[in-house]
């Protein structure tokens, strides 16, 4: 209890509240601007966190995390262009409402439902995370190896259109992580005599390159019109209590699905929002109104959207396995601060974990207040031209990657990964497995080799430990199911 109160006092310090506010404003801007993603916003802010304390850094990043989704729904409702992929379901009924002159009501519903989903997922996070961490504390090297492998296979296979391409991206990321000194015996691997390469490839420049450079290339060179404009008026944003009460069922459903799906690594926000939209439509009395502009069609996906945020924090904090690209970046932020994600975080940095809970609460409250207070600004933000935004993003990426070690070597790494990211997007290879492999690769190798040292080279250690065996079986299922499943369905259809 003392720890929780001390953490609250820490989060309520002026500098931390200010960091949350900056994060919320930046998140609303990023989310409301079509073409800019929350992941991009995160990688742009990440270099700024070097000089901040862990709590301040997380107030900033969680502010962006919770408000980015809300910002994304504004452009989805007004322009029918989802600011984030997760806002796609919101656009269906939200934009229909806007076309009927109810854009303000749709935005108000979206903001309130997002707050509801965020709060619900926070309660789940606070109640569930410590218990999972307590169990995970008993894990040894074989269990941790199997867990990281499970996390990686889930991300590589789940939700990917082409599982082979997902797995290739994951293996390619693991290959990149073999560059540098061997973690156990110090043998230099693939360093080609370079001192910089001995420390390995830093994930921060790789992150910036993978997420930001392809967007800059598309925006500046390929002539993609990144930012459209909206010239209508928005009124009546503040929702009425009686209207909100009618939406409780949709919001609860969305929050439940969002938190549950968010907690599964690799499942991601878009799955959660469409699932909740679909269920809300099926369970609604006004089923025929869905798609024509009903607030229920906005409330369910928006609640799910922010439910995903808290849900994805559960495996990230307790097991060190990120649920989506954004929590992967948050995981990187923890590592930059010298903190080890996973159960040991609860054991060794209990107060910091409480600070994350409080910071998430503050971020959600500030998102609610600041969005309503500044809604006119976000409605007009689409008019910021890309010829202004893209050069700013470019210079922030370059200086951000330089600031990691004050060396241009990292900036070169960022550029290289930018080209890789661009080519991967072009040839439909998913970048998220590559990113996660870069982040989780060192832990995977370390736990594998530590396990074999413990067993004196006996591989059966992974199968004789029950938890490790379960994780390995789940990992096997996770990448065989997407291949075997469609084949079985096809055969069944042929037989019928």
């Amino acid at each position, binding site marked *: 209890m003392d720890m929780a109160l001390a953490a609250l006092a820490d989060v309520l310090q002026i500098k931390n509240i200010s960091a949350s506010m900056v994060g919320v404003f930046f998140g609303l801007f990023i989310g409301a601007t079509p073409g800019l993603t929350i992941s991009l916003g995160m990688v742009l802010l990440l270099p700024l966190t070097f000089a901040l304390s862990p709590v301040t850094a997380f107030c900033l990043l969680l502010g962006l995390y919770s408000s980015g989704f809300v910002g994304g729904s504004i452009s989805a409702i007004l322009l029918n262009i989802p600011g984030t992929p997760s806002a796609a379901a919101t656009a269906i009924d939200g934009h229909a409402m806007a076309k009927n002159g109810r854009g303000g009501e749709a935005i108000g519903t979206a903001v309130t439902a997002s707050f509801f989903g965020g709060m619900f997922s926070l309660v789940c996070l606070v109640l569930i995370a410590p218990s999972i961490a307590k169990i995970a504390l008993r894990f040894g090297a074989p269990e941790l190896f199997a867990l990281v492998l499970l996390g990686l296979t889930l991300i590589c296979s789940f939700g990917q259109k082409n599982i082979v391409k997902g797995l290739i991206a994951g293996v390619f990321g693991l290959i990149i992580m*073999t560059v540098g000194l061997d973690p156990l015996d110090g043998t230099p691997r693939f360093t080609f005599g370079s001192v910089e390469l001995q420390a390995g490839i830093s994930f921060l420049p790789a992150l910036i390159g993978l997420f930001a450079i392809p967007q800059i*290339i598309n925006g500046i*060179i390929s002539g993609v019109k990144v930012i459209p404009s909206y010239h209508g008026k928005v009124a009546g944003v503040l929702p009425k209590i009686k209207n909100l009460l009618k939406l409780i069922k949709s919001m609860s459903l969305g929050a439940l699905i969002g938190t549950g799906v968010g907690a599964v690594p690799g499942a991601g926000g878009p799955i959660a929002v469409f699932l909740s939209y679909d269920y809300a439509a099926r369970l609604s009395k006004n089923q025929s109104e869905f798609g024509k502009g009903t607030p229920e069609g906005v409330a369910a996906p928006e609640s799910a959207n922010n439910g995903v945020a808290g849900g994805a924090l559960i495996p990230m904090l307790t097991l060190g396995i990120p649920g989506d690209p954004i929590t992967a970046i948050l995981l990187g932020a923890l590592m930059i601060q010298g903190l080890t994600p996973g159960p040991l975080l609860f054991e060794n940095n209990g107060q910091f974990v409480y600070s994350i809970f409080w910071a998430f609460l503050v971020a959600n409250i500030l998102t609610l207040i600041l969005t309503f207070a500044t809604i006119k600004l976000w409605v007009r933000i689409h008019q910021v031209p890309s010829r202004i935004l893209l050069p700013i993003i470019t210079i922030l990426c370059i200086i951000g990657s330089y600031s990691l070690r004050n060396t241009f070597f990292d900036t070169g790494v960022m550029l290289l990964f930018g080209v890789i990211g661009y080519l991967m997007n072009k040839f439909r290879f998913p970048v998220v497995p590559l990113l996660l492999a870069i982040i989780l690769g060192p832990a995977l190798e370390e736990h594998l080799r530590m396990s074999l040292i413990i067993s004196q080279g006996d591989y059966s250690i992974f199968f004789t430990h029950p938890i490790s065996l379960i994780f390995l079986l789940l990992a096997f299922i996770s990448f065989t199911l997407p291949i075997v499943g469609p084949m079985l369905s096809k055969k069944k259809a042929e037989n019928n």
Partner: protein
Amino acid sequence: MRRANIIISIILLAFSGCYGVLIARLPSRDLPNTLGATFVPWVLAGLLTLLSLMLLIGNIISNSPDSPVSIPKRDIFGIAGLLLLITSYIKLMGYVGFIPISIVFLSILTWVAGSRKPIGILFFSVLTTCIVYFLFQKFFSVQLPAGIFFSSG
């Protein structure tokens, strides 16, 4: 996409081969009961080869119609130009210093991005450079290159 996938899988197979050659050249330290530094790279090389073969064979035997993917020549030149611009910026920053080179870099980039008002471009470039400099150098204590003209040493 099928043709592109076949070419990519061949490139990946060649990459796996080169990676294998590099692994074979790694120094080995045989510590008791420990996997060597080459164990994980060998596993990964094997996995990449297997997956590349799966991608290759899957696309060769596929009956689905091909949807060609190509990067237009204009884009290739554009991307090369952008990378050259960024590389030159990075290379020159150490000599010229962050502030002057950033103003020039941002001016060129803003023009490339579609802005055509010289005064506006200059104002934007100077303002952005000053904000970024203040943010990183003063607020976050990141030492940005001063260049040979501005360094005190």
